[in-house]
């Protein structure tokens, strides 16, 4: 994995999904159906009543070379071949679906594609009169067979424009009409579905003179997925593989909480004890990229890419940290953004403190929180992370990412490269008579029986949005429960941290991350083989 797609935020469709859309738009696609069992494959072949091709539905290129495409002359053979393909591992991805289609007699292959050109700020239709695998190389070797035309966004691709485009690649006669018709339809598909790219490769001419799309790649603009519920896109982000379980858990956090950005992507499939992998928590695209470069230049690998920026709440940073720390065997936790963030950096600091403290962080952390109120942020880290097993250092805008990456390395070397062990999560025990109210993504419980011994009542002062007040010397909401739930409580975590470290440890903010508890349990079982009895204490 890499992070190239940060600038190409798109959601890919599988071939069979793309073909369905093309067919609806009036472009010829081979007859067939997607199946997930060998028996279904036989049924489809039987219904088609002619030789078929079976194609795995996995996001890899060059499927034929990987053994992902098979042919069958009979339903019986289709069943056998499907059995062979289904469940097969291709580049770590298990084949779950196979597309069974009629086999076409092909005379020639072309390439047709629509992309967005950032320089011209316009869609661009590209056609090549040679197509198939290795199209980039073909295009380079035969520039005269490739032509492109910008499409006027207000007018769309006119049929005569498509004909002129084709003419320049040597296409003529009846074929010109058939392909130009397909091209104008391809543009309409791209426009209708907000596709950042829509490609038919190959587009083929059959022996009986028809033009078909025999494969297609359509990628929907991540930012426009909300307009297309009909596509059923689970995670509106392109992956060159199906999203991992942990990525799905992270995505659900982002989906439910729009304060700031939270983007999480795993970059290493399975982290081994001997790997020098870092859990990475960046802030902002450019700052993250720069910080990742610094970490990689120190000879580390990255377990994940994560971006918490755009003024995220403390609770969001907390959840990000909990998710990053669900990756076993990482050697360090590195957080660094641009260095001069406009947002108040102490929110991120509090999120990290809560997470690291709960996790009893066992690996070193280097946290570069440069920006507004960084002094306070660094102080929060220093003051409250003294008692955890590992060292966490906080830095600000005047400390470069390169320096911080070097500190990361020094701290890891110093502790003998300890591997992170993930801990089980359990729901907190909340005393029955605790004062409880809901927040926008969680719940705050105050064990008021402990407040008797509290001299400072500092939680009320710590609360930045001023939603707590004292009644009978005990903290209660100063706003309605509904207002607190609707966002008056900003989940800044200040009350909990104050109470925990300066007073009676009476406040607990429960910020659930659906699915993470089960995920960790499974990971622990997988890595240790034995169920660990110890549960996390609050």
């Amino acid at each position, binding site marked *: 994995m890499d992070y190239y797609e940060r600038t190409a935020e798109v959601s890919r469709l599988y071939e069979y999904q793309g073909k369905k859309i093309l067919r609806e738009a009036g472009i010829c696609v081979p007859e067939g159906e997607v199946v997930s069992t060998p028996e279904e494959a036989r049924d489809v072949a039987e219904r088609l009543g002619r030789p078929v091709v079976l194609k795995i539905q996995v996001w890899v290129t060059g499927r034929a070379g990987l053994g992902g495409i098979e042919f069958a002359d009979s339903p019986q053979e289709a069943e056998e071949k499907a059995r062979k393909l289904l469940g097969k591992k291709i580049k770590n991805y298990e084949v779950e679906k196979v597309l069974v289609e009629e086999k076409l007699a092909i005379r020639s292959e072309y390439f047709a594609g629509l992309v967005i050109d950032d320089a011209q700020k316009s869609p661009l239709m590209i056609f090549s009169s040679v197509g198939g695998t290795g199209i980039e190389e073909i295009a380079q070797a035969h520039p005269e067979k490739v032509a492109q035309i910008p499409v006027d966004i207000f007018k769309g691709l006119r049929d005569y424009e498509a004909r002129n485009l084709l003419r320049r690649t040597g296409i003529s006669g009846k074929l010109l009409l058939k392909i130009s018709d397909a091209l104008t339809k391809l543009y309409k598909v791209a426009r209708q579905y907000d596709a950042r790219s829509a490609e038919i490769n190959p587009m083929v001419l059959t022996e009986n003179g028809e033009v078909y799309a025999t494969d297609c790649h359509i990628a929907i*603009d991540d930012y426009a997925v909300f307009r297309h519920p009909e596509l059923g896109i689970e995670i509106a982000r392109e992956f060159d593989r199906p999203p991992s379980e942990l990525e799905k858990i992270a995505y659900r956090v982002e989906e439910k909480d729009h304060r700031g950005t939270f983007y999480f992507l795993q970059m290493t499939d399975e982290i081994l004890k001997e790997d020098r992998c870092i859990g990475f928590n960046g802030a902002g695209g450019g700052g993250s990229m720069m910080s990742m470069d610094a970490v990689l230049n120190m000879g580390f690998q990255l377990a994940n890419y994560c971006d918490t920026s755009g003024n995220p709440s403390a609770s969001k940073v907390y959840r990000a940290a909990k998710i990053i720390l669900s990756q076993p065997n990482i050697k360090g936790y590195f957080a660094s953004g641009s260095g001069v963030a406009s947002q108040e950096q102490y929110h991120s600091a509090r999120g990290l403190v809560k997470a690291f403290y709960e996790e009893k962080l066992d690996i070193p952390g280097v946290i570069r929180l440069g920006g507004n109120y960084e002094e306070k942020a660094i102080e929060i880290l220093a003051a409250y992370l003294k008692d955890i097993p590992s060292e966490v250092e906080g830095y600000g805008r005047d400390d470069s990412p390169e320096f911080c990456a070097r500190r990361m390395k020094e701290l890891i070397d110093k502790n003998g490269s300890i591997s992170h062990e993930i801990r089980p999560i359990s729901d907190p025990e909340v005393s029955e008579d605790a004062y409880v109210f809901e927040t926008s993504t969680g719940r705050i419980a105050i064990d008021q029986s402990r407040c008797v011994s509290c001299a400072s009542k500092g939680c009320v002062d710590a609360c930045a949005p001023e939603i707590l007040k004292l009644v009978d010397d005990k903290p209660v909401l100063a706003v309605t429960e509904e207002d607190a739930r609707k966002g008056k409580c900003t989940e800044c975590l200040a009350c909990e941290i104050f109470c925990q470290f300066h007073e009676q440890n009476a406040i607990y903010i429960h910020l659930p991350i659906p699915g993470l508890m089960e995920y960790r349990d499974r990971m622990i079982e997988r890595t240790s083989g034995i169920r660990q009895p110890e549960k996390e204490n609050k």
Partner: protein
Amino acid sequence: MAILVDEKSRVVVQGITGREGMVRTRLMKDYGTHVVAGVTPGKGGGEVFGVPVYDTVEEAWEKCGPIDISVIFVPAALVKNAALEAIDAGVKFLTIVPDRVPIFDVLEVARLAKDRGAVFVGPNTLGLVSPGKAVLGMIGGRAERAREWFRPGEIGVSSRSGGMTSAISYYLTEAGLGQSTIIHVGGDAVVGLSHPEVMELFEKDEQTRLVAMFGEIGTTQEERVADLIEEGKFTKPLIAYVGGKAAKSGTRFSHAGAIVEGTRGSYKSKVQRLKDVGVHVVESISEIPKVALELKESIRR
């Protein structure tokens, strides 16, 4: 001088009654930006921090006089229509702050802007500052912070990363180097003013003596800056950092993209092209002020 905005520019804020709109209007006004009107359909007649609110941009224009700039803070799904409205009303420069604007919407805005001779920064931009004169968008967060971090001077800053826009400018200020205009071109694949277009503006600006640019892998912006320099259309000294060196190359989102861009877009391609035309490419952000100081000396001589 500075580019795109100064203290005299007459600014309208679209989406002024929203949460972001209100907070950022305060930042802009506190800093000295000449905010003359706000627009929120259905909320005409009100006021935000003393700024009159109208139902449409056209109405704001009629009642307050000509408008030079619109800063847009409406939800992503409404950005297209807000931008088209401003351009249609005659506004020639837009700052489109929201992120997650659908790409075809951006293309429509770009198309109408081209027809009407308008330009825009964004979407997904923190905005821009001409230090000591005016700020557009949300860069700096608070006026006092923006005053502390950014100082007037002769270095133009153009960045594809919002955070790095502030960071580079702050480090320049720390080194005693002021800035003419600081601009975050936006993080999306298609933006209104991209690096090469900003360079052309800096070329014409008398105050700007040299430029610092934060590039990233992906798109062809940095290569096109190199093209400009080669064609003699940008002649001022340029310091560039390109992020994404350690990214593995290869994940392309489409074959067609690769056909159009060829090898453009990768870290290697960008750095090579920039170096070939004499750009000072640095390996770390902290080198930018150092190189800028050296260049400043040589310009003086």
